[in-house]
């Protein structure tokens, strides 16, 4: 397997959606290709770091504004069962 072929399969490999035979070939390639091993590990880390660090928190007043807008919308339709 060449490095370019390794790259093509990288996403399926990371997502575990790869056939056993291709996986074996990839893992063989990794045994001797240090560069692809680094690409694999750092790509894994890239995904992990974005997943673990949520970058945007819900602004404080948004939930309340949203709630008010929905109540207004609810009151404009007939079958609204609003608490007030």
């Amino acid at each position, binding site marked *: 397997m060449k490095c370019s072929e390794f*790259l*093509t399969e*990288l*996403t*399926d490999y*990371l*997502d575990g*959606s790869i056939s056993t035979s291709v996986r074996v070939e990839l893992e063989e390639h990794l045994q001797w290709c*240090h*560069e692809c091993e*680094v*690409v694999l*590990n*750092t*790509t894994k*880390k*890239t*995904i992990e*770091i*974005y*997943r*673990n*660090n*949520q*970058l*945007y*928190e*819900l*602004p404080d007043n*948004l*939930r309340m*504004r*949203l*709630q008010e*807008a*929905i*109540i207004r*919308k*609810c009151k404009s*339709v007939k*079958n*609204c*069962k*609003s*608490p007030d």
Partner: protein
Amino acid sequence: METIQKKAENIADELALVQAAKSGDLEAFSQLVKRYDRNIFRIAQHITHNEEDAQDVVQEAFLKAYTNLEQFQGNSKFYTWLVRIAVNEALMKLRRRRADKTVSIDEDVETEDGSMPREVADWSPNPEQLYGQSELGDILKKTIQGLSPGFRTVFVLRDVEGLSTEETAEMLGLSVPAVKSRLLRARLQLRERLAKYFKSRRSGDNPR
């Protein structure tokens, strides 16, 4: 990790909430809002890069979902349906902001796009130990903002929000291979750009 049983309960519970909301129960709809408003805001913020726009997207998406609840057939998860509405709203905002440029989710980038790995130094120590929380957050934001809208939307839905490839494809009106190809490029481009900050610094690399 969610157990299968817990997942099934969540889905059943979600369907019950949707049914109640359809019959006009506002409290049921509010519970759905509270369940997902954080995720919807994050997705909107990632796509639009603008907090004001992202807030509008959240509001418009939930109001649209509320108004069109009857059209939700329950063939997909409510969350998937909601995200699709939000993604459309967010892309519309983005197009309006960049009226001079076309923003398309299915833009095809076949040219040299920075996906080929050039940085092959390992990342150690762990980047999370190298930077403080807020500095790391700034690096991650700056880096993902540099991706094209099509790439970052796929990355955010698949890798940050954890939707499946099939769900992402359905949501964006793309084929499964197109999602996979964008995801690969997005991951590799992010990796390449993050390497600038995270690669091991050996003494020889340090210009003096």
